[in-house]
């Protein structure tokens, strides 16, 4: 890859991102809701693209393609099970959206605390999100830095890649809050989809000899890769352990569940979900196809994570397209990072600082939130520079660990008897359990930590709720939401 073209592409990407971020900033008000939720006025198309870009990180084109290369079709099943989990957003999305609109919620942790009438629930949910999502952000940074280092042949050192990506994510989140994040995300989602799709056509058309040859090659040479457990990785317990946390991702991860507060109307929320489903299905197929193409063309790679960079380096992929695809991967990582940064800073300002300093003005919360963005970015930057094993474990365990928020979140809207003590017990005890299992690399009865997280948090939430008193306002909260849902023809 020619270095001058690489530098030019990175410069153009940076410049264009800033133009979009600044343009999106126009009309930005002074309120907390305006900065963190774009005043709840985003339309369906931008929301759908932004939701897609936030959900899909660099994992798709590097990790998932590598997993397909190594383990075959099980990777497709795992990712499509995740996509089907959007039924949870179709059910709970209108509930989140209505509750947030009626009661002015800014973050999912605030919603839980209000429903359970407990500040402790809010603070614990916010702290859990901070604990697991900052390492997750630093892993995105590490991914970008490694990719740039690899593609530039070492001309862009790891440290420079980390600094550049941190600067962009921080700046785009800081310039105009969710407005700039959503619009830059939307642009990046298009880059992700178009560039990765074009690579598939070039590699299959010029490298393999067409789709028929691609399908024939897989069936004749790698039939095991078309089955599960296949070459061995995807034993059923592994498939379950990977798929379960991702099935609940849209509820457990605040950077995406907060997006359910944002659409300007219920129909805009519907457009967001439908747009995301179509985007997700196509993008998943593309990622999987990359992995299978690498399996056919590059069967002897020493490490599956090299599948994508090596595929992009093949002569059948024009240099300009390889650079565009690299930008697509960088876009996937940065669009996830800036959304996480924004969500975590809103949770710190609103749910931790705001509750620890009662009576503080909304303007002050906003100021704190804006200051926290660079601090959280700095923490992610430091973690990624040190490359600690601890960070990798926390990042890997984030999807499993955040599952402990699911029973309290689901219970908030479907079970009047759910209590604050039940929510706290399920989050805290199960959170500790997941960490012990993850750090000890333990899988009791062959089940992964995420499966135990869900079992333990559900049992604790139900058991403790049954022996404690529900909040006084729970029935009224649910009745008001359910009445509005009925009016709007929502099940």
């Amino acid at each position, binding site marked *: 890859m020619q270095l001058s073209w690489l530098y030019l592409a990175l410069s153009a990407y940076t410049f264009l991102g800033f133009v979009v971020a600044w343009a999106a900033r126009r009309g930005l008000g002074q309120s907390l809701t305006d900065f963190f939720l774009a005043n709840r006025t985003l339309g369906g198309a931008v929301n759908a693209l932004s939701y897609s870009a936030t959900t899909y990180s660099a994992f798709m084109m590097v990790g998932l393609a590598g997993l397909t290369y190594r383990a075959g079709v099980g990777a497709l099943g795992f990712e499509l099970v995740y996509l*089907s989990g*959007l039924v949870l957003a179709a059910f709970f999305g209108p509930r989140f959206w209505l509750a947030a609109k009626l009661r002015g919620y800014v973050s999912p942790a605030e919603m839980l605390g209000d429903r359970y009438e407990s500040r402790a629930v809010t603070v614990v949910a916010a702290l859990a999100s901070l604990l697991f999502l900052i390492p997750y952000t630093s892993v995105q940074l590490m991914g970008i830095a490694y990719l740039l280092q690899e593609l530039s042949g070492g001309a862009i050192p790891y440290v420079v890649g980390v600094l550049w990506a941190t600067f962009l994510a921080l700046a785009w989140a800081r310039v105009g809050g969710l407005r700039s994040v959503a619009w830059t995300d939307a642009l990046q989602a298009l880059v992700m989809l178009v560039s990765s799709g074009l690579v598939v056509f070039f590699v299959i058309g010029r490298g393999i000899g067409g789709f028929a040859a691609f399908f024939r090659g897989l069936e004749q040479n790698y*039939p095991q890769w078309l*089955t*599960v*457990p296949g070459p061995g990785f995807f034993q059923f317990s592994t498939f379950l352990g990977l798929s379960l946390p991702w099935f609940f991702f849209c509820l457990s991860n605040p950077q995406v569940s907060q997006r359910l507060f944002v659409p300007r109307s219920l129909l805009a929320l519907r457009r967001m979900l439908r747009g995301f489903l179509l985007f997700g299905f196509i993008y*998943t197929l593309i990622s999987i196809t990359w992995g299978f193409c690498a399996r056919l063309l590059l069967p002897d790679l020493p490490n599956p994570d090299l599948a994508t960079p090596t595929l992009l380096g093949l002569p059948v992929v024009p240099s300009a397209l390889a650079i565009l695809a690299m930008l697509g991967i960088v876009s996937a990582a940065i669009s996830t990072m800036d959304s996480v940064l924004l969500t975590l800073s809103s949770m710190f300002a609103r749910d931790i600082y705001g509750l620890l300093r009662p009576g503080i003005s909304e303007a002050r919360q906003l100021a704190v939130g804006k200051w926290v963005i660079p601090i959280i970015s700095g923490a992610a930057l430091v973690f990624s520079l040190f490359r600690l094993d601890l960070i990798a474990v926390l990042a890997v365990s984030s999807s499993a660990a955040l599952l402990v928020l699911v029973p309290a979140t689901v219970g908030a809207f479907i079970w009047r008897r759910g209590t604050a003590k039940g929510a706290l017990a399920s989050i805290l005890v199960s959170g500790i359990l997941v960490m012990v299992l993850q750090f000890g690399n333990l899988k009791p009865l062959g089940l992964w930590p995420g499966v135990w997280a869900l079992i333990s948090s559900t049992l604790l939430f139900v058991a403790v709720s049954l022996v404690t008193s529900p909040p006084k306002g729970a029935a009224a909260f649910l009745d008001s939401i359910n009445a509005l849902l009925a009016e709007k*023809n929502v099940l």
Partner: protein
Amino acid sequence: MGDRARGRRVALVLWLAWFLALEVVAFLVPYTVLRNVGRLWGAFLFWNLFALLAIASIFILTARWQD
């Protein structure tokens, strides 16, 4: 409970049962019936059809929403 509320509850239970069945099938069929089918019409096609069915179901589930 009024007729409308009862109707909503029945619809909700039916949707829940449908999605539960879809997920169970998505986890089990590739590991049982299609376990030794090393062809594209095996687990690959199955999971694609499963996803399309899930997506279509979500489209229908949200079709009656109104502002």
